[in-house]
């Protein structure tokens, strides 16, 4: 039993890292603009399909798709921003409907270009087992777990140390006050969408390398990312990591100790419990600034 639980914890942690990478972009835009980008999962998926094209079209390792994915996904993310930016009234509610619609459009674009087949990497290197003591995983899972931690560290550094990061936090905290300080809120929000695009691009290549994607998978990713974002508390980067790890481990332990059929139920139960006990999420303080 110990062996089973240890493996479940390890699998849960790796899965949590993957969830965190997917949720980061959504959390950033949510924190910066109070906009829930319901097309975020489709942006991740777009990057995954680009990785597929690079692998099977050019014969390269999917990792080399990252630069192409960065360009395509960031441009798409900017387009989402320009459309959302045109909303003048009730942006929080209207952006929900708008980004949902953009998600549907992106799903159908993916379907048109790449067809409905399930896709995943064929790279032997990515799928090979990596065994460390009693812990088993694929190489790609460990690789992108490390990438996920690096991306989170970089984002945290960018938000707390760089001028643009501080500007994003200032706009998030008080848009009018930030304006008076000489910050262009529109430009700052655009930057946050671009950074979310970068995160989605990396998350997509990661997802393609250890998981299986299909055109309808985008909405599943968005829901998962949204749960983690709310669980974490708005705008908290460490919260996203902790929330994602918590969800990943809870799911893996449910599979091991009970049944996989209950894992989604347990995930949602955890989400509701945290919200009931801590309405601002795990790391969201009332009146929190930046």
């Amino acid at each position, binding site marked *: 039993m110990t*062996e089973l639980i240890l493996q479940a914890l390890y699998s849960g942690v790796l899965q949590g890292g993957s969830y965190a990478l997917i949720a980061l972009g959504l959390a950033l835009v949510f924190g910066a603009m109070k906009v829930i980008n319901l097309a975020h999962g489709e942006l991740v998926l777009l990057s995954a399909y680009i990785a597929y094209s690079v692998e099977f079209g050019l014969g390269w390792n999917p990792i080399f798709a990252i630069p192409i994915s960065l360009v395509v996904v960031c441009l798409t993310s900017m387009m989402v921003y320009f459309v959302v930016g045109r909303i003048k009234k009730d942006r929080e509610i209207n952006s929900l409907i708008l980004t949902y619609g953009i998600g549907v459009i992106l799903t159908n674009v993916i379907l048109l270009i790449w067809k409905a087949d399930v896709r995943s990497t064929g790279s032997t290197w990515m799928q090979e087992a990596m065994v460390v003591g009693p812990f088993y995983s694929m190489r790609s899972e460990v690789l992108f777990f490390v990438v996920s931690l690096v991306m989170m560290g970089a984002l945290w550094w960018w938000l707390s140390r760089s001028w643009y990061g501080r500007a994003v936090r200032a706009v998030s905290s008080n848009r009018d006050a930030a304006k008076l300080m000489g910050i262009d809120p529109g430009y700052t929000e655009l930057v946050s969408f671009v950074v979310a695009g970068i995160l989605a691009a990396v998350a997509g290549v990661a997802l393609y390398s250890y998981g299986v994607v299909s055109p309808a998978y985008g909405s599943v990713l968005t829901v998962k990312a949204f749960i983690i974002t709310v669980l974490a508390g708005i705008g908290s980067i460490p919260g996203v990591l902790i929330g994602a790890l918590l969800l990943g481990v809870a799911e893996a332990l449910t599979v091991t100790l009970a049944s996989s059929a209950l894992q989604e139920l347990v995930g949602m139960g955890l989400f509701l419990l945290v919200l009931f006990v801590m309405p601002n999420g795990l790391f969201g303080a009332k009146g929190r600034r930046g």
Partner: protein
Amino acid sequence: MKNTYRRIGLAALVACGLGLSAAQADELLVGVELPLTGTLARVGAGMNEGIMVAADVFNKTNTKHQVKIITVDNESAPAKAIAAVEKLASQGVLAIDGGYGSNNIAPASDAANKLGLVYVTSGGVDDSLVNSGRKNFFRINNSAGYQKAMVGLLSDLKVKSVSILYSTKEATSGLAHDLEKTLTSKGVTVVAHAFDPAITDFKPIINKVKLQDKSEVIAMVGYENDYVGILRAARVLKPSVKALVGVWSLATPKMAADFPDLMPNVYGTAVLPFPAEFKTTEGKSFNEAYQRIYKKEPDYLGQFGYVQSMLLFNAIARAADKGTLKKDGVAEEMRKTDSETLIGRVQFSSNGDNLNFSHRMGQHQGNKIVIVWPQADATGKANFPGVPW
């Protein structure tokens, strides 16, 4: 100049003649309701290919009747499936062809039943589809046929213990429960593990199989994404099993091409070996038309779509000949069906189920898919024990 007029006159006569024969061939409208977008888009598109090939073959071989297909995408949603049937009925179709996923087929076929339209499918294996009193419902495959093939193979391999991993979706859980019951009654030790369709990491389940179940065989009842996840997890954890057996969408050329490291020695249900060998005239004409239209080897979805459609088109044509199209004639002709098809003999019972459906089991061996069960149709021997790693 005289010759030119003569040629023009001759050409006009030929054109009139052709026009006359085209006008004589009546146009039979058939509605196709399928998931072409959404979660079931891949399987819906595969079945649609078979339907289009059937229409092509039927129209080329029939001068008296021509079918015209009207397709509506149900977006993999039950409510949209009902709307699709109603829309097709309003356009005057004579029957509904298609449907995938028991949860979509049930409401869609209910709607067709209320409208007095025949509904034929190969996309739903849930038994409730044929046990709920739908008078005009017909299907060419069923859960029992898949179960028979899996149990037959496992019995021939003299397997003593099996871990069944199954998706909690309706069709897969129904098949898994039936499989568990039948294997248990044969004295096989069975442990069943249900998994949520949203699961992506199967390592915790495979670890249970490895450390607790210690079964000889892993039986997978799911879909392509589930198979990939299970096989990857198994490849990492390497449980000491002797075989991995699945059902639909697994023993296909596409899986062999997309996941060459995961497929060696894996079993799945298969209508034909790969490379496909079509021995009958119908099989050859299907293969020729499929490759001409889609420029690829036909797969099982295409074959099932083709068979169900040809049976329907022929039933409609017979009803048209008898002048009973508006008097429940299509359903009547479907009930009288007794045809040798690409998937074997098809006859419908009173509840619309195919009486003779039994699948075959194929195994990925190198770049080929070899039929290994039943013995009578086998194109090679099973590699047993054999796993992908």
